[in-house]
């Protein structure tokens, strides 16, 4: 790692945070709770999803502690089942789905397209309130005694065989679903209608493209989940007989409906993360993204194909062999755009001028771990090997590589990247680089052994397991401890930086996006006057030219 850096901060002895900005404009709790400002709503979201990430993460810690020994020594099997169910529900619906879009996306998309706000600011605030209501319902379900269906709510287990809080949890996810539909709708309208003069579709930053693709998935997919959960609730209360064969229903139908949303949901979670990586890799190698169009269209391709692969979750469930064949083929096709993206990012580095600030380290972590996560997805997409590997720890490791190794790395990368814009202050560089490395090491220690466990046949969702699997589980738990430290550090030093961080100035990274051409933290209206986009995205020559002009005019 070289000492070279692109960070250019204003003179710290004279620099001040601009007096007028979106944080200082109004004060008091009400000014936050009734705000229409996308940046304030993004801040509210950031605080709330961090809270739920903390709960979900603590539950993950409990899971790993229980699995330290082959017997159920820390908690009873029932408690364990409730813990992993809540871990899944919270992490998927209250953290991963809203993570990048509702926080970073909310914060930067209007600025990236050169708009004052999202198209529907009140709807944006409504989606945060819906999120909070969903969160409260989940916390209630947990406090009232929990739920042990697993986050997949498999019927007829969820509809007839459990007497835990299935209904309140199901309705919580129903509400959270509307929160995500509204966010998606808002993004789509904003990206279509609110672009500033000169901002054509192919001048949009790739972060906008990937969030656009994810928004389409949210709007089209989430209603199906909502319907499914309502049917589960009706089946439990009124025994309408849609899913339970004892009442003439079809349990496979539940699987189809659930995965019709929940597979695209995976892309809802990962696509915005990919957008972050495009921005970060370009900025820290000072080079336009290699093959802009290919990366943009690969996001759209993932969104389109993502809708037609859901039954690959059901290869062993008695769907016809030919259906399995078709869904397997489509799954292979959806893997290709992800491979394209990885290579395009790698070649963005080629002949760049690379520096290694924290966001870039997280982005490198993303590229490595997402490659593993994606490749092991192919193991599961191929029908033959899926029979052996599905429903084991292999699949647990696979989706944690994609969701935690991929998405969470991207989220942290993005948070560090836009932190100076958001708060006007820099995070401490050295300790955050250290945290990025700790996270990477801890992650691999935690989840890599799970691939081997899965190949050996250890089933997922087991509170107790045969003793020969213990050694690898001990490795995994040890890794989780390191990983936990890696996640605690940013919470600490980012809070510290709110007061003590160096003043960032408007463009510390020398990045090209429109959001970097305004003050940090931005004005409530984002820009003093409507910007005009007169260059391509990632045009570093334009940026350089711009700086020379400024120097000339000042001189």
């Amino acid at each position, binding site marked *: 790692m070289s000492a*070279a850096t*692109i960070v250019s901060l204003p003179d710290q002895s004279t620099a001040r945070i601009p007096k007028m900005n979106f944080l200082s404009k109004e004060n008091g709790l009400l000014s936050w709770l009734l705000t229409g400002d996308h940046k304030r709503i993004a801040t509210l979201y950031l605080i709330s999803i961090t809270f739920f990430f903390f709960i979900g993460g603590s539950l993950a810690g409990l899971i790993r502690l229980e699995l330290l020994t082959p017997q*159920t020594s820390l908690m009873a*099997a029932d408690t364990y*089942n409730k813990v992993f169910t809540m871990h899944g529900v919270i992490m998927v619906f209250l953290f991963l789905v809203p993570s990048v879009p509702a926080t970073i996306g909310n914060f930067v998309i209007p600025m990236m397209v050169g708009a004052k706000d999202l198209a529907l600011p009140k709807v944006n605030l409504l989606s945060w309130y819906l999120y909070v209501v969903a969160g409260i319902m989940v916390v209630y379900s947990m406090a009232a005694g929990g739920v*042990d269906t*697993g986050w*997949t709510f498999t019927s*007829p*287990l969820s509809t007839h065989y459990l007497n835990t809080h299935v209904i309140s949890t199901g309705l919580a996810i129903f509400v959270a679903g509307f929160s995500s539909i509204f966010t998606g709708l808002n993004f789509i309208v904003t990206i279509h209608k609110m672009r500033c003069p000169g901002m054509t579709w192919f001048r949009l930053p790739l972060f906008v493209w990937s969030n656009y693709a994810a928004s389409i998935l949210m709007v089209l997919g989430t209603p199906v989940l909502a319907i499914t959960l309502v049917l589960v609730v009706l089946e439990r209360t009124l025994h309408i007989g849609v899913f*339970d*064969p004892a009442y003439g229903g079809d*349990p496979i139908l539940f699987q189809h409906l659930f995965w019709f949303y929940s597979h695209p949901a995976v892309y809802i979670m990962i696509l915005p993360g990919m957008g972050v990586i495009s921005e970060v890799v370009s900025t820290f*190698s*000072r080079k*336009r993204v*290699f*093959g802009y169009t290919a990366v943009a269209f690969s996001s759209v391709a993932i969104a389109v194909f993502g809708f037609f692969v859901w039954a690959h979750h059901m*290869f*062993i469930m*008695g769907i016809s*062999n030919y259906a*399995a064949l078709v869904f397997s*083929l489509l799954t*292979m*096709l959806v*893997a*290709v755009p992800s491979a*394209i993206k*990885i*290579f395009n990012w*790698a070649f963005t*580095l*080629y*002949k*760049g*001028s*690379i520096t290694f600030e924290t966001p870039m380290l997280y982005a*490198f972590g993303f590229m*490595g771990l997402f*490659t*593993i996560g994606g*490749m*092991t997805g*192919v193991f599961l*997409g*191929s*029908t*033959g*090997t*899926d*029979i*052996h590997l599905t*429903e*084991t720890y292999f699949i647990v490791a696979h989706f944690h590589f994609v969701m935690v190794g991929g998405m969470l790395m991207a989220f942290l990368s993005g948070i560090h990247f836009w932190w100076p814009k958001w708060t006007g202050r820099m995070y401490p560089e050295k300790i955050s680089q250290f945290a990025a490395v700790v996270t990477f090491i801890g992650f691999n220690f935690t989840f890599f052994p799970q691939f081997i466990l899965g190949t*050996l*046949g250890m*089933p997922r969702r087991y509170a107790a397991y045969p003793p020969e699997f213990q*050694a690898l589980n001990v490795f995994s738990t040890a890794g989780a401890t390191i990983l936990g430290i890696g996640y605690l550090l940013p919470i600490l030093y980012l809070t510290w930086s709110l007061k003590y961080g160096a003043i960032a100035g408007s463009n510390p990274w020398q990045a090209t996006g429109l959001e970097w051409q305004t003050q940090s933290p931005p004005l409530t209206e984002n820009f003093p006057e409507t910007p005009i986009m007169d260059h391509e995205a990632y045009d*570093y020559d334009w940026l350089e030219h711009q700086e020379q002009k400024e120097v000339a005019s000042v001189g």
Partner: protein
Amino acid sequence: MDHISPVLWQFLQKWLTHFALFPPEASKIAPEMDALYFFMVLVSLVGLTLVVLLIVGFSILYSKTRHPKAVQIEGSTILEATWTIIPLGLFLIMFVWGALLYFRIYTPPANAMNIYVVGKQWMWKVEHPGGQHEINALHVPTGRPIQLTLISQDVFHSFSIPAFRVKREAIPGRYTTVWFEATTPGTYHLFCTQYCGTNHSQMIGDVVVMTPDDFKKWLEGSTSGNSLAQDGERLFASLSCNACHNTRPDSRGPSLANVYDSRLTLSTGEIITADDAYLRQAILNPSQHITQGYAPIMPTYQGQVSEEGVIALVEYIKNLDSDYRVQQTLNTTDLVPENPGAKPATAGPTPAAQKEVKP
């Protein structure tokens, strides 16, 4: 090694003695699946190495200290086509290879010996055709294709034998099948891999693979006296199925001899094959499955017959190859005697052995 703490030392020892990267290969399909698995591992390693080399290599070559001014490059159609087509080709190879295995594992050969498995919270009940019942265990011989017909009595379960590389969901309300041919005698893990409630992790058992001779001995030692078909016959009589399915000219139900695997025309005009699943449905939900020419008068047996009972009935109907047997059942006023005819002890697993039972 006294400078390492004893706990750590014990742990390392334990790990090294149990160290394995994949489970034992105890079925015919296992080495074939492992071949594909290792091919995929190889491709992944090559791909990962390539990505890591590109990132590390470019990071060293083009770091800001070495390369202070970036050269702007639009993209490259040839390069992008390369990394679209090569992964696509590799993925398609994995797709075809995987599909070949999948079709083999889920298409049982015609000569396979059929064993029924019923899953319920939280145990596996195994029914051998010879009448041997097992709980949380499955005994099978080597060198012989075994077909499992699975069903669940309550929620989704999944029958997984890692050493055989096979797994199949046990679904409430419908039969699923999977087959394997064990190759190496030994005891292997049997897991329920679909989360099924509180004691999901206790729904485990042993698969015992035996040489054909040992298996024969085991069969003889574990018989319950009646074959599965005989259990079915008794149930058939006690439910008075023969009141209608009695082969008389004026009978109200169709004759069941040789009905298994035959083509039936339903009252809707639809033509179906009378397989296990059809027979099960016709017993539990008869109004939806009326054979052409008969009135929809059969009552449903939903809730009156357990899944094991239905299995016994299906097995009985499967083995009915003449009307004679039904008439015999008809003539004995209520129940057939405990050991009708021959030697139940040798009531072997084959259909041939079943036939021996018949007088």
